[in-house]
């Protein structure tokens, strides 16, 4: 996995341009970076006396004023519980939350709003599918069945499947990655069999930045009769998501990584699959009729939304998605492609700095190593210079084992980052080298 430093920039740059090329067919879209930055009040602060440079967007992103205002507005103007209230405020809150569902539907390209389940985030979405689909009477796994994951999965797209397999006597198989950090599709073909029931794949790797070819994977998975769940946590902020074009059966993402609030996310599920799935949590809101002798359940998506939901979260998420679509995901992708390309060039030009992963298609982030310096020390020195990055195993311990690394430093970009900030990152990494020389 360790790439020679000299060849890394070219590959990474190619990845950056690939993103740009696929999204900027016509004239270069205008992108008013100064205005964008002004939309994010948190960015205008200093850390340890230096201007904040926030490069930890893959962990969580900052929020535009439109999101803050949407949440405050809900509480200030029309807050009440949703669902059954007959009064005016309940109607307003319910309508706003259902409009938010429609916004999410449009954002992911689903056919119907009923295919969108509100959840607390990607982790809960995946657990929902593992519990409900994975353990359902009509859809559940049996002993001897198999679940396929990839070597680059976040713990949240691995552990729920381990729990399911353990309980059901099923096996978990792992699709390997190659030296560049791309998925080994030939191995996927070999591993797929009539025993395969569920395949779970990240759209974008949170460590390597690799964009996986979901449409191609979906085709292979469906030909072998399995269903495909895509962990879109790292993709939704950077790529146009269209579940119809991707052809996946489930798609999960988190609000807090797409400039929305934390504690909210969405699961897209193909209508006929959701219809066949049993509830996974019981409570109010998910029932049709409750009697002591037995209860019948509401149709999707309410069937999967027990209890009073995160109302203001859904409304804030919709505001974030509106913000993104107004800016234009293509324009965002082109800008972030430039940031990524510049970062790859600058960092790999520093002696002793090595990029981790060199997939041809990448989005959003770069993992790197500084020779002789532990990633935590890199992170702490960068913090002292006002730069927020992530250091560690990034909740992907099995992948770190494959890479034979205890940890990496990860710089992850968002739509408000600047080329100057990328240059400051590179300069700071040079400082790290000096400090620990």
């Amino acid at each position, binding site marked *: 996995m360790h790439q020679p430093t000299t060849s890394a920039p070219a590959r990474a740059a190619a990845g950056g341009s690939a993103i740009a090329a696929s999204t900027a067919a016509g004239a270069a879209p205008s992108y008013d970076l100064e205005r964008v930055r002004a939309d994010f009040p948190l960015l205008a602060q200093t850390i*340890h*006396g230096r201007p904040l440079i926030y490069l930890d967007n893959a962990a969580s992103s900052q929020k535009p004023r439109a999101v803050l205002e949407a949440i405050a507005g809900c509480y200030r103007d029309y807050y009440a519980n949703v669902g059954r209230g007959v009064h005016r405020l309940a109607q307003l809150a319910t309508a706003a939350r259902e409009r938010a569902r429609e916004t999410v539907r449009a954002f992911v390209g689903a056919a119907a709003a009923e295919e969108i389940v509100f959840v607390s985030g990607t982790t809960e979405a995946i657990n929902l599918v593992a519990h409900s689909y994975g353990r359902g009477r009509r859809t559940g796994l049996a002993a001897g069945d198999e679940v396929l994951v990839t070597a680059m999965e976040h713990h949240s797209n691995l552990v729920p499947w381990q729990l399911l397999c353990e309980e059901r006597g099923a096996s978990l198989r792992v699709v390997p990655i190659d030296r560049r950090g791309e998925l080994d599709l030939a191995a996927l073909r070999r591993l797929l069999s009539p025993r395969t029931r569920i395949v779970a794949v990240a759209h974008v790797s949170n460590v390597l930045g690799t964009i996986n070819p979901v449409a191609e994977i979906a085709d292979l998975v469906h030909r072998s009769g399995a269903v495909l769940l895509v962990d879109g946590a790292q993709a939704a902020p950077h790529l146009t998501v269209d579940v119809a074009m991707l052809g996946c059966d489930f798609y999960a993402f988190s609000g807090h990584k797409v400039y929305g609030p934390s504690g909210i996310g969405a699961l897209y599920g193909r209508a006929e699959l959701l219809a066949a799935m049993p509830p996974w949590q019981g409570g109010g809101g998910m029932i049709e009729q409750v009697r002591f002798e037995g209860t019948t359940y509401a149709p999707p998506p309410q069937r999967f939304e027990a209890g009073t939901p995160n109302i203001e979260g859904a409304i804030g998420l919709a505001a974030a998605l509106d913000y993104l679509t107004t800016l234009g995901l293509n324009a965002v992708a082109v800008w972030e492609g430039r940031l990524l390309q510049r970062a790859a060039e600058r960092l790999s030009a520093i002696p002793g700095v090595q990029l981790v992963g060199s997939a041809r298609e990448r989005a959003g982030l770069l993992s790197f190593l500084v020779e002789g310096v*532990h*990633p*935590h*020390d890199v992170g702490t020195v960068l913090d002292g210079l006002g730069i927020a990055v992530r250091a*560690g195993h990034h909740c992907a311990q099995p992948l770190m084992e494959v890479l034979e690394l205890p940890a990496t430093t990860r710089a992850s970009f968002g739509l408000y980052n600047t080329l100057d900030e990328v240059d400051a990152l590179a300069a700071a990494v040079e400082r790290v080298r000096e*400090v620990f020389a």
Partner: protein
Amino acid sequence: MSGGFGELQDLYGEVILDHNRRPRNFGRLPGASHSAVGYNPLCGDRVEVYLRVEQGRIEEIAFEGVGCAISTASASMMTEALRGKSLEETRRLFERFHALVTGAPDGGGSTRGGADTAGGGALELGKLAAFAGVGEYPMRVKCATLAWHALQSALAAGKATAGRG
């Protein structure tokens, strides 16, 4: 490390950087009576501490492993500080060190910069005072105490893990 780092200099002082570059007592200890591994799952740091204890006194001590500058330097300086110390002195020194890096009121602030207090008793932090800066970085406390916790496990495990190497 010229200007611009501000309080970072408190964390990565020259003593710490030096022990990170050239860890002392690094390697296995043949004939160790005690040993234990310390592992920080959060960052993947791993340190193994080896001791030869005779009649309640640490005669020899060494460590090996991979970690950040703070955990490496802490392990290295711990081995220097503890050679020849009794187990009771060791326990009390860890208490003081722990208070220092967690920023507790009795964190040995008075010994800060007093590394060479001549004739200091067994409880003087001495060079370990270099870790006072960690108090400002709560995320790094576990790094500074990793080797110490491994030492504790080694001593608590008694002879059960003896005879390695």
